[in-house]
């Protein structure tokens, strides 16, 4: 006599197989929902905007006249902003990650800092805008210039960069570092020649992804005050500026006045998406190509 009741098990198996099929269909549906929404969104933007993209649009100055309006100023502004954000985030972000992962003693202070940095990554971007307004625009009296905007954006993406860099540093197996110490290398030599090179591809990937967040952010810059007016092209860190997402925002806002502004906004979105796609592509390429496999 068998202990297992084969008949009952057989019945239950049938039911489980039905649940199995339902589960697969459910998850497929949710994926489909996300993809369809995205497709509709992209389709609308492309149909609205693609006809407005031309060389003149990309190289033209801002204008109230739809025929003459261009986004050269916004492209230049975004580029200037990145010029500030990139070095600040990478130096401070990677530096902090190195300290936390490789120097700081394992203890309460370290875990307190780590938890708070992770929390900061979830703080709404507008809060960083307020911080930037208080500290850089008013406190340091920089005004609403590129430097102030760049520093604000750098603060916004610092937590993400630190977390990504920390994870990259953690992923370097400790036995590789041990080998270096075992040969009489100092801590800094080990970091400089072994740990950093091994972690670098992931660090760069993380940095590019957080930079692409900075490129797409609008709220903090609105808070520190980006003029909606026609402004001269920026030429230094101390000039006022506008960026692509802010341009999209103002054109969308004013589309109640001039309907075609909505098309200009759509065209600008296409340009912005294209830029972000390139950045993400580079990040994925670096990750696949240069990540070391310790096997």
């Amino acid at each position, binding site marked *: 006599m068998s202990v297992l009741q084969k008949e009952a098990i057989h019945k239950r198996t049938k039911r489980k197989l039905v649940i199995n099929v339902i589960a697969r269909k459910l998850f497929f549906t949710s994926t489909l929902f996300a993809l369809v929404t995205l497709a509709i969104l992209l389709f609308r933007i492309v149909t609205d905007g693609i006809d407005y993209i031309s060389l003149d649009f990309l190289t033209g100055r801002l204008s109230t006249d739809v025929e003459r309006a261009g986004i050269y100023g916004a492209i230049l502004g975004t580029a200037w902003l990145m010029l500030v954000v990139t070095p600040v985030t990478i130096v401070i972000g990677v530096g902090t990650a190195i300290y936390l992962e490789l120097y700081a003693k*394992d203890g309460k202070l370290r875990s307190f800092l780590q938890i708070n940095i992770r929390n900061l990554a979830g703080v709404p971007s507008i809060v960083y805008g307020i911080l930037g307004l208080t500290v850089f625009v008013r406190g340091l009296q920089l005004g609403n210039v590129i430097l102030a905007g760049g520093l604000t954006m750098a603060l916004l993406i610092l937590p993400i960069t630190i977390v990504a860099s920390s994870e990259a540093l953690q992923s370097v197996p400790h036995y590789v570092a041990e080998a270096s110490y075992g040969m*009489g290398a100092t801590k800094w030599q080990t970091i400089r020649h072994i740990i950093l090179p091994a972690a670098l591809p992931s660090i760069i990937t993380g940095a590019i992804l957080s930079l692409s967040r900075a490129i797409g952010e609008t709220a903090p810059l609105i808070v520190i005050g980006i003029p909606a007016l026609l402004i001269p092209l920026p030429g230094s860190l101390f000039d006022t500026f506008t960026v692509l997402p802010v341009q999209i925002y103002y054109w969308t806002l004013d589309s109640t006045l001039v309907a075609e502004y909505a098309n200009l906004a759509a065209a600008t979105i296409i340009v912005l998406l294209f830029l972000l796609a390139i950045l993400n592509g580079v990040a994925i390429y670096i990750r696949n190509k240069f990540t070391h496999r310790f096997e």
Partner: protein
Amino acid sequence: MGQTIVLKNGRKMGHGTVAKEQALPNSIFKTTDLHVWYGESHALKGISLDIKKREVTAIIGPSGCGKSTFIKTLNRMIDLSDNVKVKGSVYFKGKNIFEPAIQVEQLRTEVGMVFQKANPFPKSIYDNVAYGPRIHGIRNKLLLDEIVEMSLKKAYIWDEVKDRLHENAYRLSGGQQQRLCIARCLAIEPEVILMDEPTSALDPQSTLKIEQLIHTLKEHYAIVIVTHNMQQAERISDKTAFFLNGELIEYNKTKQIFHHPIERRTAAYIHGQFG
């Protein structure tokens, strides 16, 4: 302190007497009443041991008996662990390595280490071997070439890699990686090589190659090897130290330990009755 040190001539001595004794002229390492704690756990309990030049010293014992802790203490790799406390002394060529004047980086260039898991750097074969000399300031390309070739030859891996020196080290097989790690260690010209179960992750063929290598290396180096493999200890070592629960139970010539152990527990361990 119930442990007994058995000296070369077979005389038994309490560890107190051993501590006062002068280092023998061909002694390279001498530990006296060495204690190590990881936090609350007492990992080494008063180890007094004399290690000689041009000899292979095997450390055997069951898992968690302190063998790895012991050799990691010899080049102060133990400093990298959290919450470590050390008492007693370790004399390397007559100097206590725990004195503040000793630079740990300097010590590690004289006491090299090969680890349980082959751990090449994610760099080329050449750069792996050249790493040590480079961090110690050697920039001359010709000199580096020479060191790399010589070290790879000493580790009997030159013929297998001479045409692919600039390939990533992780493309080598496990056994080749471990010999590369030995070559990398030889490149800094240490006097002692510590090996922490260097063949435990390797197939018998690669193990044999490493054992042969150890046999030729002992002409020039003192080798301290931790091993789980009794036959290996018997094959390759001149002296064997048996550790149990952080204590040194017996230390003697390998032949003596394997054929006429003095301690009952040594005999039991060697004959596979525990561990």
